[in-house]
């Protein structure tokens, strides 16, 4: 599938191209003249320099002409920018929440997702904020970007014109996994979007979450429905920023195959070996610092105090099922 474009992509490309052509022509002119002078007036060929001190007319010319050119550049840059900042009234608003190191998209009807699903040919406004540090929401294909700042709400808008998925990057450095703070904007046909938005079964938020974490896992003794609920709890509480369920290391140990394994932990600075039974998992989530798993120096897992008892049990069951 080709990368989709927005109503701004072409405007950007034209202005960019014009500026690049100007830059190349200017550069080549300056360089050519410079090299010509150095060759033509080489001391062997031209032993007596002429003591020219300057030329006022020239100075005026090469002040005024560039001044006019840059004023023009400013103007076209400004015009394009104004388009980017004037959100059409009918825009469909989606809230974006950035945090270290993932994006969550919250729709008007309460639907949440980790990918940005949008209908084609519709004006979309993103209303963005951050829960922790500065991030920046960047869709290269649409040529739009705006920082996502804690304590304030910033915005951008676009109108996708073709369907398909496009990359979303975090463009403002935000710590260890900045380069992995990625997502996708998925531009859909109107019907497909409506049925997703209306909540057809196979496209629940949890399913969307799943694609992001791309788990390769085997679960036993756990229904599909329970599993989706558990993953949603993990997702909502930011556990996936540091843990995977496919055995690969992230900031913290993978949750796969954890149950009943021997864990080397530090308790008050003393090393101990503990078998990861159910009680251990509970402690590890509620009070992670008490028994600190060796080998993750410096990464502090936040205690999960927001979990309700039933949610806690659910994820512990889920971890146990990850063989």
């Amino acid at each position: 599938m080709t990368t989709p474009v927005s109503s701004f992509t072409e405007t950007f490309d034209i202005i960019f191209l014009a500026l690049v052509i100007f830059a190349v022509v200017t550069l080549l002119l300056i360089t050519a003249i410079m090299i010509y002078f150095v060759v033509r007036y080489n001391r062997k060929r031209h032993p007596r320099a002429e003591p020219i001190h300057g030329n006022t007319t020239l100075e005026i010319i090469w002040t005024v002409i560039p001044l006019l050119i840059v004023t023009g550049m400013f103007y076209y840059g400004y015009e394009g920018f104004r388009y980017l900042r004037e959100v059409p009234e009918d825009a469909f608003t989606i809230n974006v929440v950035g945090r270290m190191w993932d994006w969550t998209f919250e729709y008007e009807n309460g639907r949440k997702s980790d990918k940005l699903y949008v209908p084609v040919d519709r004006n979309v406004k993103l209303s963005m904020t951050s829960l922790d540090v500065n991030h920046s929401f960047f869709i290269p294909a649409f040529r739009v970007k705006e920082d996502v700042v804690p304590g304030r709400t910033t915005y951008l808008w676009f109108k996708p014109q073709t369907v398909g998925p496009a990359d979303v990057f975090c463009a403002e450095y935000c710590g260890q996994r900045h380069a992995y703070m990625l997502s996708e904007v998925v531009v859909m046909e109107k019907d497909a979007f409506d049925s997703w938005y209306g909540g057809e079964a196979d496209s629940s938020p949890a399913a969307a979450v799943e694609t992001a974490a791309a788990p390769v896992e085997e679960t036993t003794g756990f229904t599909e429905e329970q599993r989706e609920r558990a993953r949603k709890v993990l997702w909502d509480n930011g556990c996936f920023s540091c843990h995977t369920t496919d055995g690969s290391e992230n900031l913290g140990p993978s949750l796969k195959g954890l149950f009943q394994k021997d864990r080397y932990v530090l308790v008050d600075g003393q090393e101990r070996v503990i078998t990861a039974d159910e009680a251990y998992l509970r402690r590890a989530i509620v009070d992670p610092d008490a028994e600190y798993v060796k080998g993750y120096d410096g990464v502090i897992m936040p205690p999960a105090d927001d979990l309700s008892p039933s949610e806690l049990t659910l994820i512990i069951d889920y971890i146990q099922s990850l063989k």
Partner: protein
Amino acid sequence: MSYGSAGNALPLNNFRTTKTRYSGIFAWIFSTDHKRIGILYLISILSFTSVAIVIGLLMRLELIAPGETIVKPETYNALFTLHGVIMIFLFVVPGLQAIFGNFFLPILIGARDVAFPRLNLLSWWCYMIGAFMAVLALFTGGGAPDTGWTFYVPYSVRTSTNVSLAVLGVFVLGFSSILTGLNFVTTVHRMRAPGMSWFRIPLFVWASYSTSWIQILATPVLAITVLLVAFERLFAIGIFDPASGGDPLMYQHLFWIYSHPAVYIMILPAMGVVSEILPTFARKPIFGYKAIAFSSLAIAFFGYLVWGHHMFTSGMSDTARWIFSLLTFLVAIPSAIKVFNWVATLYKGAIQMSPALLFTMAFIFLFSIGGLTGLIQGALATSIHTHDTYFVVGHFHYIIFGGTGFAFIAALLYWFPKMYGRLYRMKPMYIGWGLMFVGFNALYFPMLILGWMGMPRRYYDYIPEFHFWHVVSTIGSWILVSGIILIAVEFFRARKHGEIAGDNPWGGVTLEWHVPSPPPHENFDVIPQVTWDTYDFEHGLPEKTAEGASHP
């Protein structure tokens, strides 16, 4: 043609051999002689720079392929922070100003030293102490800072790494910069030789003087800002961190109010060097002396008003964005004027090629690319896309490395014979130039392309689409560095074993060519009476070399 002139030994009485109160290394680190201090800066700055170059190579190596190549993400983040902090605060900000400004500014205006020699020594000590604190921050506390050289809050407040000590190091370094600025401004105002009127001072001095004003006026803003970051970390005072009621955008404003003018601290002295080298090798006056001098002042002034272009996507108001865009375009004009005047200086000259001139030409070429890509980022519509991408990384390396870095080497090639009394061999320098020029463009041009494709900066990893240009870029870094090594080795050899240079190997007219190489302590036996304009090759040539080997 032979470069070396009269004699086959260095003058017995030069600033290196002068007896002082102290001996050994103390005769240097406690010296108040501006030339010795210049050499101290040269050695200390280049030592730090070589570390930062190695870090740069490591970063490029990591990026040669997606995924983990040689280091983990947290190490990579510490590496780019360190690379930036060293290159900015320990190399290019003091750079030409502290090394060549110290060594040559007094000589160029016919003075025996700077106005406050002891303050000058204190500046070097501040530099060393600040640098030491920054280095200490790597190995103590939570370890090497991983915030990027910009220390953006709230991340710099959240991270467990040792940011507090690092920013305090930057605070102390700031004093070095402020004191140097103060010293140079006073020196230029008060110590010019008789007849050295304002419009006779060499353009390097004009540039250095403009830079000094920025150092004095802008650096305190940085000092306060980083101090507040330290306080924010230690006491959560709630100035910048929204979690305690602060505003992260305020941090960015304050930071760039210094750090944008700082770009001009980095580039203005480089422009000054270029304005010295061109007339000497073209053997004719600089074209448009006043235009170049005033454009330095204009840059110093307008440079204050454009900091907002670092914040085009920050969430700052749209009104502020277009105003800063307009002002940014205006600040391009004085730089353009300089470029035109430099090229015009070559017109009808009697041009002698030399490595210094070749590096100067490369400067004009690379700096122009930096400036022209700057226009793309000054225009709001295009800037929104390129902001915080590799386009910016490419752009500022064209300005800072292609500009200041190449001019730095040009300055060293031009003035080395004066500083050390000896000449290097031309051939390794030409080859080194070739390697550097090719390597540089292979390293940084792909970054412009990557940025245009959407690759964000400070990324440890990237999607496969970006792979090809990263490979090219990394190969470029190897070519570039081989050129740097070649040049460094030749300088190292020449400083002891080079041919004796004589007083005026290039046939220059400014005052440094009127004194022996290396110059004696206090430079002039008799303070010169200046009766000719700068770059006046009919009247300004020193007597001795008027008929010397290098004169046609």
